[in-house]
């Protein structure tokens, strides 16, 4: 696989604000040739060049890998223009796989459709579970408010006009009920905290994108590659990087 193709694809996606992901760090068996990340979105690229056509059924194998990629939100097949006629556009389109044709530049012939990744689905399940627990907590809150108002009403009544022993018994029941709800609430609260910290922890891990800084041909003070799109060609980078320097003061 030529570095030229890889470089063109990296340039194409970084200009769209994606950061390159180090393939070696992916814990999957069927790794794509390139992987990118933008915020929480992930994108894989499977490359078909002349070398990869040597084996029998190589094209179908590569397309099958792309179609069954469950880890990325967006999946692309990248081919040299000479091979494009061998690719079934309809099949890719049906499964939401994008197609990039590489010539002098990279041309996006088919856009990839967004798919929920397995990781995100897990995240979604945790969120749903959290929501269920939150709803339960709200129900308990309401029950406690009702009990609270019952107790206030009893207190407000002052001199008991009821049978004192039956009132005591009711109060004991209410107290026991409050104790039970209190312990359930405390257990829900700790579960919520555990789930919340799990989600935060996962987010933090996702946020730690391995950054790959590539050398550029153009000489700039601060390279904006691998950074979000609002860094690209931003004249403020040079202005701000000279803040506090004597030249700038002058």
């Amino acid at each position, binding site marked *: 696989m030529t570095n030229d193709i890889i470089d063109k694809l990296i340039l194409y996606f970084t200009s769209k604000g994606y950061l390159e992901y180090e393939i070696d760090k992916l814990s999957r068996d069927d790794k794509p040739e390139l992987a990118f990340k933008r915020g929480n979105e992930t994108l894989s690229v499977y490359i078909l060049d002349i070398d990869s056509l040597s084996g029998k059924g190589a094209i179908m194998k590569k397309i099958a890998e792309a179609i069954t990629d469950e880890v990325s939100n967006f999946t692309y097949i990248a081919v040299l223009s000479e091979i494009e006629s061998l690719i079934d556009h309809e099949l890719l389109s049906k499964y939401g796989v994008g197609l990039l044709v590489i010539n002098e530049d990279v041309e996006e012939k088919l856009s990839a459709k967004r798919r929920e990744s397995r990781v995100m689905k897990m995240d979604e399940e945790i969120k749903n579970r959290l929501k269920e627990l939150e709803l339960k907590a709200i129900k308990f809150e309401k029950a406690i408010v009702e009990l609270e108002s019952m107790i206030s009403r009893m207190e407000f009544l002052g001199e008991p006009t009821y049978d004192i022993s039956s009132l005591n018994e009711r109060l004991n029941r209410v107290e026991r009920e409050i104790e039970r709800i209190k312990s359930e*609430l405390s257990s829900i609260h700790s579960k919520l905290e555990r789930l919340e910290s799990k989600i935060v922890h996962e987010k933090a*891990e996702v946020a*730690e994108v391995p950054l790959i800084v590539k050398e550029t041909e153009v000489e700039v003070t601060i390279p904006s590659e691998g950074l979000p799109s609002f860094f690209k060609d931003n004249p*403020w980078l040079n202005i701000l990087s000279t803040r506090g320097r004597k030249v700038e003061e002058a």
Partner: protein
Amino acid sequence: MSEKYKRKYTFGEDYGTSYYKFGPITLGEKPEVIENRGYFPDKSSIMYKLMSVEREVIVGKNLPLYLEAREDLSSRLIYPMRNGVIDRDDDKAWKVIYEITRYGLEMFKPVSPDFKGFYVCASLSAVAPRYMYEKLFDIHKEIDEKTNLIKAVTIIPQPLAVAIAHKAPTCVVIESGHGNTQICPISRYPIRGAIVALNRGGSDADTITSQILYDAGYGDIAREESIVRRVKEAIGLIPRNLDEAIREAKRNPDKFRVKFKIPGTRIEIDLKEESWTRFLIGEYIFNPKNEIFKSYFRRGLPKPKDVKIGEILFKGMLDFGEAIIEAVEKCPIELQPYLYNRILLSGGNFQWKVPDEFKYIAVDATTKIKLLLKEKEVEEVTVEMAPEPKYSVWRGCIVYGYAVPEDYVWSWDKMEGWIKLHD
């Protein structure tokens, strides 16, 4: 610390009037967003004790779970940045700022062993007085003492952040939010002496919408703030020329007739022959001096007043064109053409729709600004709407925090640089 370190650990904080937008550079294009508010629960309530709430103030996404009686909300639910400025002694508001800042930093606490603290770039309103900077620095210092999460901190004005996010070193940024509008010329630095502030924002369009609803017989709806805001967004139009627009709408009442059904209810608002009033909503934001508004002021519509908040005078009745000219003319003459050449509009108050069928008579915010300037013989102007205005301040903070050298020490004269909190 290397450039590589800042690529991972630069952190942006935008204290907006309604939302707090925050997060590290690794989030990419969009920050995390929570409402800029805090809830002070009633410590004497059984709920407080049962929920084992240890904090004095609750912030973040789970805040609604802790809300209690509706009548207590106004005193217990605090929006600290409602008009961009917090009083020096408003302890509750500062407590909320402390909690949301800590909440945001702890949400992204890195696990990597190379982490030695974030380079935090926070952003405040352009009209924030010096004591707000001091308070915010103190808050970060206190958080760092308890968590070790902040290596260094700096604060920049929001219009500068907008200019950075939009790659415009020389421009005028107009930031119009819920309560006020700030016009800030920028030429590599914010030109603080030229800032003009207006005591007018999205809430004023809500006020006149409420009056229009009241006049049309919807007095009960006119009192519901959130419904009024939705009506404003659905029916409000900015006229190219108010008098012509009113004449046209009165000539073709059916064409301009507007009905709005409140989702999830049976209520439908129909302005019928009064539908021409939808043009008043947009005009009022940009130019409340039009003759037609005098009758509304006489009938009790509160006239936007000049008010002094901190050291800044917020003017009530200047139209947007006059305000831009006033700000630009405080700058050197040579610079003025460059400033007019790039005017950036930012903030929710500039998001106005123009339906295709009304394009001959209604305009968007950028065109309206150009027309107001043209009336005053300023013609060589370029006005742009900031794309994704909600995130531009955070993006500007990230670029600033990343690019400004770490050894550039904070200067109170220049109001920039880093305050180092730990090694």
